[in-house]
């Protein structure tokens, strides 16, 4: 069974559209994350939720809105997509929010904005 899954795997869309990426983990973890990998392969944290509560928001434009309906799901909605949003978005989860612990990563969603 996949521990952290994301849908879709690929997403191609036009500037100005609104899109969502979904993430689910079946590990029973309390904390979930979104990371962005840009065209230069640099990976950076965007958001983190602990038990459905937002605990990290790393100065991401407010066009990005994470939503956690329950602790097993963390979705990412992006409004008014821009060319610079093209990237690979990774979801991850871990047991604890502040005491270290292994983070498990999903397969990534490659977003291309044209």
């Amino acid at each position: 069974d996949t521990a952290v899954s994301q849908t879709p795997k690929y997403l191609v869309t036009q500037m100005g559209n609104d899109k969502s990426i979904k993430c689910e983990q079946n590990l029973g973890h309390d904390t979930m994350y979104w990371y962005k990998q840009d065209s230069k392969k640099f990976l950076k944290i965007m958001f983190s939720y602990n038990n459905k509560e937002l605990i990290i928001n790393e100065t991401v434009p407010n066009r990005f809105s994470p939503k956690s309906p329950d602790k097993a799901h963390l979705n990412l909605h992006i409004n008014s997509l821009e060319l610079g949003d093209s990237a690979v978005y990774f979801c991850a989860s871990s047991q604890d929010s502040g005491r270290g612990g292994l983070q498990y990563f999903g397969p990534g969603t490659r977003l291309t904005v044209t």
Partner: protein
Amino acid sequence: GIQVEQSPPDLILQEGANSTLRCNFSDSVNNLQWFHQNPWGQLINLFYIPSGTKQNGRLSATTVATERYSLLYISSSQTTDSGVYFCAVGARGGATNKLIFGTGTLLAVQP
């Protein structure tokens, strides 16, 4: 915030060779993970190693937390080892467990 530096940035090996990748970090950590990003873009977790030494087959890793570095050893490299290797750390004492990634080492193993 904590800084993470990886070296070398690029590495070309002949199949069968050994290599050592290094990760330096600027502050105390409660999490350190090594990842391999394969040519298909998947992030494969290799080691969770905030301190100590671990081995998994041809790969091993050592973190010396007091000196703020970690090493990843690849022995008898194979072409399937090609890809980008990332080190990522979580700062000790922080309220969150966010990982700060290094810029990676791009490894190419030639047959």
